[in-house]
């Protein structure tokens, strides 16, 4: 009996030993005014809200009748009050912002009172996925707040929030959200499995999770969709997908996902289906244009002069006449310049960034044409291609697209148009082999599923969306039962 006591003391000491080095570690003792019980409060001053101690905890503990540790549940007006006898929890609880209460008479029991200081940024507008119409709230860094935003949009009991704590150092809480009655059980298990398998010390953002649980981490394509829009998350949860909320990250992850989803903006659902379909097609065209146009320029000018219409020939030849660089170097030079501008713009404060963009775009562009380093035709092409790459609604995908241009350039230089098709085959194969949570990434294009096309390259009206996507293999594939079709009416009836 005595031995055990000593052992516990040693343990007790151990956590205290390292914590006591920190300036914000506080341990204070008080006497209850009525019963004269001596109790101590231990906490990390920087993590807790002092107001809760001053107004909520101390007055009650000092002035009310407080005899044993069980009493605090009645005395303290805080929801999260726990009592336990496991000393190994102490360290974690303290570092999570709890106040530990010890009573001299009951050394084996510890009371924990939640008193976290919540520093929450106010809701702001979505910046990456801004939309003109539709809701204007975006996620913030606090998980509680984010969950609140999602729950408000899906107030049903079937929305399950499972919590994990990952990261040996960061102890990040991560929540997995799904609809119990819809989402495929296999998918849920896979995500759960992958999350528990994560081995990393400090997870500071959801992008870590993206890279850690992706099917193929060597792919330039993001295989989890991240969004900062609560409405989008609510929408996809209703479709039967899974959302992952990471504490400290304003981006929520969505899985499984498909390639076409990266090119659909959530704003598409706020517009009439004709308009949104048109915009989606424009975006897809922009992507193809952005990837292919510079390589095609290089291929045609280096190898296939026959292809160029005779009226365009003079323009191209005169614009290239003074340029010492072969088309490929010319293209690389301009592409890298654009990347430089983008990178510089992204690192600088908004106002300076804008200036740099304009200065870089106009001054460097014109100057390099005048200096005879690049042709003005290519300048137009590269600028348009860069512009087109920014039309992708998902920022990560835009980055991927800009990167893809370079292998295409390489093959265009190597084998001209043939090389471009060759590289396209490589890309296609890569996409075909790619999976998101084990589901084909290219769906519904391949494997071809006509019924899933309703919300892919185009978006059909909501009446046509009565079924959930097949590839999610949902438990309940019907979204709403279609009303029995009304009898067709003749004109003026």
């Amino acid at each position: 009996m005595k031995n055990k006591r000593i052992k516990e003391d040693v343990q007790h000491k151990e956590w205290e030993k390292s914590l006591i080095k920190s300036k914000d570690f506080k341990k204070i003792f008080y006497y209850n005014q009525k019963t004269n019980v001596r109790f101590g409060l231990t906490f990390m001053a920087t993590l807790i809200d002092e107001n809760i101690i001053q107004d909520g905890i101390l007055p009650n503990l000092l002035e009310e009748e407080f005899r044993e540790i069980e009493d605090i549940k009645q005395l303290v007006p805080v929801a999260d009050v726990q009592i336990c006898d496991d000393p190994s929890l102490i360290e974690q609880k303290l570092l999570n912002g709890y106040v530990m209460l010890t009573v001299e008479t009951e050394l084996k029991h510890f009371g924990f009172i939640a008193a976290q200081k919540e520093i929450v940024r106010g809701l702001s507008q979505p910046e990456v996925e801004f939309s003109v119409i539709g809701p204007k709230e975006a996620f913030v860094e606090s998980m509680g707040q984010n969950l609140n935003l999602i729950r408000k949009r899906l107030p049903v009991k079937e929305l399950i929030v499972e919590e994990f704590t990952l990261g040996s150092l960061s102890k990040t809480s991560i929540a997995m959200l799904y609809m119990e009655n819809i989402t495929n059980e296999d998918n849920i298990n896979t995500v759960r499995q992958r999350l528990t398998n994560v081995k990393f010390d400090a997870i500071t953002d959801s992008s870590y999770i993206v890279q850690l649980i992706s099917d193929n981490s060597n792919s330039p394509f993001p295989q989890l969709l991240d969004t900062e829009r609560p409405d989008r998350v609510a929408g996809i949860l209703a479709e039967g997908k899974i959302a992952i909320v990471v504490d400290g990250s304003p981006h929520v992850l969505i899985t499984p996902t498909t390639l076409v989803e990266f090119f659909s903006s959530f704003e598409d659902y706020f517009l009439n289906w004709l308009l949104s379909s048109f915009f989606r097609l424009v975006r897809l065209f922009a992507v193809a244009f952005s990837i292919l146009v510079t390589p095609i320029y290089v291929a045609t000018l280096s190898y296939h002069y026959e292809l160029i219409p005779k009226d365009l020939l003079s323009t191209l030849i005169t614009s290239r006449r003074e340029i010492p660089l072969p088309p490929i170097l010319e293209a690389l030079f301009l592409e890298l310049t654009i990347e430089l501008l983008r990178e510089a713009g992204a690192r600088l404060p908004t106002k300076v960034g804008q200036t740099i963009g304009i200065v870089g775009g106009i001054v460097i562009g014109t100057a390099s044409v005048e200096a005879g380093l690049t042709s003005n035709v290519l300048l137009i092409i590269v600028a348009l291609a860069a512009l087109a790459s920014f039309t992708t609604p998902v920022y990560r995908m835009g980055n991927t697209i800009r990167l893809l241009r370079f292998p295409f350039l390489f093959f265009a230089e190597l084998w001209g148009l043939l090389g471009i098709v060759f590289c396209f085959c490589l890309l296609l194969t890569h996409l075909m082999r790619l999976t998101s949570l084990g589901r084909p990434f290219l769906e519904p294009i391949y494997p071809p599923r006509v019924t899933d096309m309703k919300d892919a390259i185009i978006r059909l009206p909501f009446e046509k969306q009565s079924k959930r996507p097949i590839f999610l293999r949902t438990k309940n594939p019907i979204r709403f039962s279609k009303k029995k079709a009304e009898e067709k009416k003749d004109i003026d009836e």
Partner: protein
Amino acid sequence: MKKLTLFCLVLLLSGCVEKEIIDDINIEVGVGYDLAEDSKDKYRGTVLFQEFQPDKSVINRTFSGSGKLRQDLLLEVTKQSSEPVVTGGMKIAVFGPDVSRAGIYDLIDSFQRDASIGARVFVATSEGKAEDLMKGEYGTRGNSTYIYNLIQHNIAHRDIPKTNLHILAHDYYQKGKDPFLPQLKKVSNDKIEIFGISLFKDDKEVDSLPVKDMFFFKLLVDKYSEGNFDVKLKKGELAAVKSIRSKHDIKMSDNHASINIKIEGIIREYTGDELATDVIGAVQKNLEKKIEKECLRLLKQFQELGIDPIGLGQMKKSKQRDFDYKKWEDEYKTLGFDVKCNVEIEETGIIE
């Protein structure tokens, strides 16, 4: 990653192919052939290049060379050119009168064999030497563009029947049909005009039609065509008729070919007082008569020359199994013709 880099490097080093960077090559845009004066060489070729100025105006450059084969000519030209010569941009090929009379088969074969030469190249004959024709200064957009557009719009809206390298080769190889080519003439140093149609037997030019017959020729040769013709009426008034749509229909019976031509046209110009209904009727009648007469004359002329640019032989073959072209050649000499024409004037412009 290492493997990938290695793969790319290896490909780049060993898989590379010869480049033809657009501003480092000399693109042949047109070529003219004459017979060489020296009988040792067969052809004298004049190759036309374009040089673009910074203000986008075009300087025409021509290089001439002699040789037995088309490739010899190119070799000769390459010797004079500052950059490698490529043939993929060729738009026009002109044959001088002596070449077209001696036979153009070798050159056509060479064009067909060369993968870089397109099918829409316009082939034409010239009235004078092809070298002279090439060496003019026509228009501001370069000689080749000038000649190309000249022929193209005349095919589309005027009296040259459909033609290009493919049609030439098609007709040449088609039994029971002989090829024809438009004929150009250099009028002055800055002007070229269409001079007529060269008629070929096999690959040799045997005759040419003047411009005034081209309207009728086109009606006979092209299944659908557009064209212009002036009709003279009894009192000396003139009416310019533009045929909007025309359609011909050839029926071959045993030893007789009957050709039906239907024209839908409009009157563009009239020199008389009033374009009354009866005048329109008269215009129609006169035009019909004129077309029937002229077409018959042309057909007779072809028969005498022993050529068949319309493809009557092919028409006949398509109606008859086990057709014998040898026998046809004899039959053609005694073939009877009749031409029926039906003109319909649909509009007369915005005044009466």
